[in-house]
């Protein structure tokens, strides 16, 4: 079983999103899947009864939507910055716009600014159409400068 680190290096070298997702047990728990469209990453959270938070609607747990978007943000940072250590989340803020129905959910993230140590990311999640998001979020991650990582190998 590969460690997180070797999965990261492999994913970045071979462009395998699946091995990145597989390196994060929580991402596997909720069922995150990654898709590469050209140079862009889109993520899918397939309909899953284990992710339900409101049995009467039924709706996906708001925490799962937040967790999904945090996973997506972190993977986007890994993919875009090519750092080979896991970024550390500093803060995460989410606005819930519509209830997340019991169906497939999609998300994409964008690095808004990459500083030396901190990366600002914005994330959007939707179900039927990207134009009608169910949630928007933003997050900050701490990354190790690449020079520090280069010393590792």
């Amino acid at each position, binding site marked *: 079983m590969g460690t997180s680190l070797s999965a990261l290096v492999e994913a970045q070298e071979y462009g395998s999103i699946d091995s990145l997702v597989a390196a994060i*047990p*929580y991402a596997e728990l909720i069922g995150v899947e990654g898709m590469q469209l050209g140079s862009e990453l889109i993520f899918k959270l397939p309909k899953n*009864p284990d*992710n339900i*938070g409101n*049995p009467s609607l039924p709706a996906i*747990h708001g*925490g799962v939507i937040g967790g999904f978007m945090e996973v997506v943000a972190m993977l986007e940072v890994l993919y875009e910055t090519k750092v080979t250590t896991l970024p550390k989340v500093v803060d995460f803020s*989410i606005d*819930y716009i519509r209830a997340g129905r019991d169906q497939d959910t999609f998300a994409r993230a964008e690095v808004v600014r990459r500083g030396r140590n901190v990366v600002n990311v914005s994330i959007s999640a939707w179900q039927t159409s990207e134009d009608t998001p169910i949630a928007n979020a933003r997050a900050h991650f701490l990354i190790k400068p690449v020079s520090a990582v280069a010393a590792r190998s």
Partner: protein
Amino acid sequence: MKINYTQLMKAVIPTIRHCEVLGISTVEASAGKLKLAMPWKEDMLGDRDREIIHGGALTTLLDTTCGFASASALDPWGLAPTLDLRIDYMRPAEPRKTVYGFAEVYRKTTNVIFTRGIAFHEGEEDEPIAHCTATFMQLDKTASAGLEDWLRQFEVEEA
């Protein structure tokens, strides 16, 4: 109606599938306050090498804690959808230790309920793992219509 909120939450949490998946359980509850527990589990890790729980599991714990603290600030008790939630991660959760979530309502207006909460290890409330603020929308009373009979089982005698 005076309610035993701890009994009520012990009945409600097991009906929430994703809380069951994460092993979340009720510790204690009162009007506008709630404490939940979440055990360390290997499948909720974000960093497998360092055995650190992923922020997403903490988000679910805190959203649930703040959300039901809000529900218990309403009369009658009723679900309040999350408007927004912000989490500041202060330090990683320690491997193999239960994480507790505590939340309280600090302001309730006609439409909106303001809450704050922390995730922490027992006895380490002063050094939380995460701090959270979240706001919830108060639905109109018709949304909780039909709950009266169900709520009656948690009713206690007025002192």
